[in-house]
């Protein structure tokens, strides 16, 4: 492959045409993704959809075999040390040395980061009630996550990457993690990429969202735009029907008898007109949650799209 000089477009992360195979399994299939500076970018998708594989490419832990990955305009796999010094990373199961004490762990990690802020590290440690004398292997799952979060934040990274950070944690620890995302983004110019299957958390803190399913980006965009262009509409038909009709823009149906609810994308007027042709009346309309949009897009009830 010919090396193309990277055009630093101002996007902190720029992924193009990224395909990754593990044996016969296609983990990523032509992924294209741009993460602008200063946003919280949420990666959503089911387990095994390819989120972690994508994040490993962003961190330079995997090298792009097909396609390209740029972080701060450079290839993270070519010089991971340079990129990683500017990145804070927390994974679902932080790989921390169990034999170390919390205080030792902080001093040890500090050596890797020129920008490490010991006062900030100590402030975070205190706010999370982490005992510096406690052995890492004796920490609860929540306290381990908090320790991992201190390590990810204490060098005040330009880019914070969190891979399923809330998975299996209690609500209080999850709030600490979300709070860290909010505070990171509140500092000018910092960027957050995080993956999660807890869609209500993504909805709370993300500016932009990409939905990944079976290695492909199904849709991606500003959360506000996604919310503006999806509707949940309840229709009442003159007669009970065993199945809902095929209507343009409908992503999924739910219901029984004469009343069926659709999650749809596109213009509401078009759906209203199509419903009227079937003799149906719109009896309810609201903005769906990201969770409902997600389930409608990739869930078992998702329908084949019908052209308008």
């Amino acid at each position, binding site marked *: 492959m010919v090396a193309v000089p990277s055009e630093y477009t101002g996007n902190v992360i720029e992924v193009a045409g990224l395909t990754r195979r593990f044996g016969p399994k296609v983990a990523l299939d032509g992924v294209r993704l741009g993460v602008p500076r200063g946003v919280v970018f949420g990666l959503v998708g089911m387990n095994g959809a390819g989120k972690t594989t994508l994040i490993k490419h962003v961190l330079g832990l995997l090298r792009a075999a097909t396609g390209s990955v740029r972080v701060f305009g450079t290839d993270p796999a070519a010089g991971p040390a340079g990129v990683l010094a500017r990145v804070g990373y927390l994974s679902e199961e932080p790989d921390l040395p169990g034999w170390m004490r919390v205080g030792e762990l902080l001093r040890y990690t500090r050596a890797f980061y020129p920008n490490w802020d010991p006062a900030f590290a100590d402030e975070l440690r205190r706010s999370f009630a982490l005992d510096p004398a406690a052995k890492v292997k004796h920490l609860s799952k929540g306290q381990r996550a908090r320790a991992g979060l201190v390590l990810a934040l204490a060098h005040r990274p330009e880019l914070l990457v969190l891979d399923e950070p809330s998975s299996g944690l209690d609500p209080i620890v999850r709030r600490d993690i*979300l709070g860290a995302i909010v505070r990171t*983004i509140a500092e000018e110019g910092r960027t957050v990429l995080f993956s999660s299957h807890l869609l209500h958390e993504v909805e*709370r803190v993300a500016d932009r969202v990409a939905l990944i399913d079976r290695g492909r980006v199904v849709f991606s965009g500003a959360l506000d735009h996604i919310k503006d262009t999806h509707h949940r509409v309840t229709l009442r038909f003159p007669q009970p029907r065993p199945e809902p009709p095929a209507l343009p823009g409908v992503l999924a149906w739910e219901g029984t008898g004469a009343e069926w609810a659709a999650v749809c994308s596109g213009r509401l007027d078009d759906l209203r007109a199509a419903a009227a042709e079937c003799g149906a009346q719109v009896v309810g309309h*609201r903005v*769906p*949650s990201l969770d409902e949009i997600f389930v409608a897009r990739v869930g078992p009830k998702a329908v084949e799209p019908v052209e308008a």
Partner: protein
Amino acid sequence: MDIHISPHDGVPIYLQIVNQVKYLVAAGRLAPGEELPAIRVLADRLVVNPNTVARAYRELEVAGVVEKRRTAGTYVSAAGSPLARRERLKILTERIDALLAEARQLGIRTDAVVDLLRQRDEVLQPDPEEA
């Protein structure tokens, strides 16, 4: 400023903030001239994206509910009262719409609903003997 965010019910979060601030102003729980929390402070407290709070404040400013001052703070507009009345009417209109829709579903005519309103109003009048 008591604001509660529910990310499950689908209403965009910025709109939840806008609606609740309008409601608090209408209810007199945010007084004209009162300062709203700084964007970062509210974002931190509600655990939502600061850009979302910023958008809510912008919408509230456009609607004339709040105003930015030179000191960079955001304050409830002094001209809050006529809007407050409009907001109060809007809240009531939504309730009335829901009531009328339900009445229609139950096959009760609007005249009967109005009669019922008057009747209930009399029942709920405080007893002059007790007052």
